[in-house]
């Protein structure tokens, strides 16, 4: 009986230690400044190796895109290899709440990379007119309660000016109303379900809703394969995104293109074996298969379709727009048409700069949609804050006012992001000017490949 008591005491001591170590209680502003200083330095030091690679591109970007005037100076500083003295003052904190753990981390880890690149990138470009930004990461895990907990931390403890997150639409429906009530602007980086911007005035997103992205890929596939008559559709019934997307796909097939919808098959994102669905699809003798799912399940469905003898064209939804499907379907990925909200092949100064920064950090890999969208979210906040600063509105100590000003400013601006030019409707819905259709081209090793821009 003694031992459990000792363990219990040890456990509670440990918990207490953990609490105090992680700053469970809200830190006063003064100490947070001191805390923040080394962090920024560290971030910049970390960034040092990447500087050389990025610098020329950034310079080009600055010239071509007529970026804010401050951009030129820090670029020069960065190129000469000097350290962070260009930045001074209290860092402005922006929250990032994505799934760093749980089985949603496949998406969340990519988002974290996008955030880290954005932090380094914008600080190198001079932050907010010389003031650094600091991204505060809070893990949402994969559930709704986790998202709310992360939001509460960011809003009340970390006192961020705005939040980018959460990863899943279902999490957004849980956590966004809380930020909205607290008057904290939220930008959804990957929430595509219908109804997200309508949650409230403070909620917007940079992730285009599926209805606008999906049909383009089908049209591209039909253009290359004019004989298509029978279409089979498959989707992940337990994924919010795929469920909305398939509705758009099915409508495009039957209403817009007047084709025959031969069969609709469903699966779960946790499924790995699609033998039953493939058999049903093959029995329907389709000339085109359209899949809405995520990387692992969608990739396996493609692989098993091909291995069991399907030879016709395949269209993949936006959930398949990730290099993560390459290791799943390997050489069988070749030729899939993919609806994209982001294309690494877009050649604008901003996207070239983003791509260079990403490749330097990720062993030369092309960036995918998730990091690009988070990056775009950070960019919206940074540019809106820069504009607020010019209007003299950043020098306030009234956090509530700053948050509400930021929200108004963010929604009214126009941004040249790696996704292409975007702006927002008054409701907070993204207006993205360009969408992309790519075709997957696998390399001869069957393990790596790329998304080749079609239109």
């Amino acid at each position, binding site marked *: *009986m003694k031992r459990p008591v000792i363990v219990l005491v040890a456990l509670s001591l440990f918990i207490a230690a953990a609490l105090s170590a992680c700053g469970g209680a*809200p830190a006063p502003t003064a100490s947070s400044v001191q805390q923040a200083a080394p962090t920024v330095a560290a971030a910049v030091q970390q960034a040092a190796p990447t500087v050389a690679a990025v610098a020329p591109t950034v310079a080009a970007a600055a010239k071509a895109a007529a970026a804010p005037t401050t951009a030129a100076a820090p670029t020069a500083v960065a190129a000469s290899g000097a350290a962070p003295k260009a930045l001074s003052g209290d860092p402005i904190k922006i929250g990032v709440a994505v799934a760093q753990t749980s089985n949603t981390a496949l998406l969340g880890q990519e988002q974290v990379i996008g955030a880290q690149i954005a932090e380094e990138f914008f600080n190198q470009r001079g932050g907010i007119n010389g003031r650094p930004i600091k991204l505060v990461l809070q*893990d949402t895990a994969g559930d709704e309660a986790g998202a709310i*907990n992360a939001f509460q931390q960011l809003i009340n403890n970390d006192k961020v000016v705005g939040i980018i997150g959460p990863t899943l639409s*279902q999490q957004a*429906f849980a956590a966004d109303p*809380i930020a909205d*009530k607290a008057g904290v602007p939220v930008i959804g980086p990957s929430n595509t379900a219908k109804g997200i911007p309508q949650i409230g005035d403070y909620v917007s997103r940079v992730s285009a809703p599926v209805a606008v992205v999906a049909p383009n890929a089908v049209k591209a596939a039909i253009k290359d394969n004019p004989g298509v008559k029978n279409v089979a559709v498959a989707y992940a019934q337990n994924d919010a995104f795929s469920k909305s997307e398939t509705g758009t796909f099915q409508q495009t097939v039957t209403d817009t293109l007047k084709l025959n919808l031969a069969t609709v098959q469903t699966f779960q994102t946790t499924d790995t074996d699609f033998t039953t669905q493939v058999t049903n699809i093959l029995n329907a003798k389709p000339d085109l298969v359209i899949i809405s799912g995520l990387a692992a399940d969608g990739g396996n469905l493609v692989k098993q379709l091909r291995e069991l003898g399907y030879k016709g064209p395949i269209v993949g939804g936006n959930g398949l727009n990730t290099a993560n499907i390459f290791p799943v379907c390997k050489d069988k990925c070749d030729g899939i048409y993919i609806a994209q909200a982001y294309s690494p092949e877009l050649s604008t100064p901003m996207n070239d700069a983003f791509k260079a920064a990403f490749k330097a950090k990720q062993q030369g890999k092309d960036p995918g949609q998730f990091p690009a969208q988070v990056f775009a979210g950070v960019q919206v906040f940074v540019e809106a804050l820069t504009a607020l600063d010019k209007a003299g509105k950043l020098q306030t100590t009234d956090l509530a006012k700053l948050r509400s000003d930021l929200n108004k400013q963010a929604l009214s601006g126009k941004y040249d992001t790696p996704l292409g030019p975007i702006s927002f409707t008054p409701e907070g819905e993204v207006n993205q000017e360009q969408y992309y259709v790519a075709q997957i081209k696998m390399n001869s090793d069957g393990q790596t490949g790329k998304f080749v821009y079609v239109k």
Partner: protein
Amino acid sequence: MAEFYTTYGFLITSMVLAAAMALSLYLPLMAGQLSLASPGFYAIGGYIAAVLSTQVFHPGPGPYPLYLVLIEMLVAALVSAALAVLVGVPALRLRGIYLALATIAFVEILRILSLNLPILGGAVGIFGIPQPFNTQGEYIWLGLPLLLIAMVFIYRLERTRMGRAFYAIREDETAADAMGINPTATKVIAFTMGAVLAGVVGVIAAHFLNTWNARQGTFDSSINYLAYVLIGGSWTVFGPVVGGLLLTALPEILRGLASFRFILFGILIAVGAIFFPQGIITPELLSRFRRGRQPGRPASGGQQASQTHGPAK
């Protein structure tokens, strides 16, 4: 303090709701039945609240009236009770792991059905659930009374004829039967009480989370609730409550460790199981606590108790 509650009010309320869910698992366990059906009834309760509050009741502007939440709870309780009897009568003939698996099957069937019923919104679920309160922390005014009522109810129940019948079945079903206890009826009653509690918690949770979908109340949460009960202690009403509170708080306490936190969380669960094989709160601990509070009693009395009732070998 107020600022602390602004940040952690949501967490504290989720802890309270988790404790109530642990009790819903504990109720059938009192009668020796390892049922993992609670998440299913929790999901049903949540969907009932979500559908009624977004599609049936239209109370007009302003905060959502609390009496409507109470009506939702009543509906959820009735539906859960009816379904529990329907499922319980065949399923409770099973014992041990077989019952656990049958109830898991029930939870999975419900999940697939809810994904396919158009009124429940598919994978996206139902969102924009109206709020009776301004902040999530205020849900403590629904959660805490519910938890306390459930605790008092179970505490009293343990001392009634029915409660003793539960324990008799837990100890030895055949002997209980011979003593004139109707095992099937008693087990169904225990199962139904757990289901009603879970359904009512689901109603609160749906409002509390702003949204409801098929990811709520799944196999994973079944296992979590079981961990609450076993780590907390499965022999008194306080065990599941402590387990639920503690294990819900733990990942948030470890939040600063970022991606490390669930590594440590897993280790702590394993360590907890090993060091508290009877759970954290054991009947011995409680009786020692009670004696310790009586004036004039030396502490040695407690030690004696622990020696005589120490962990079973």
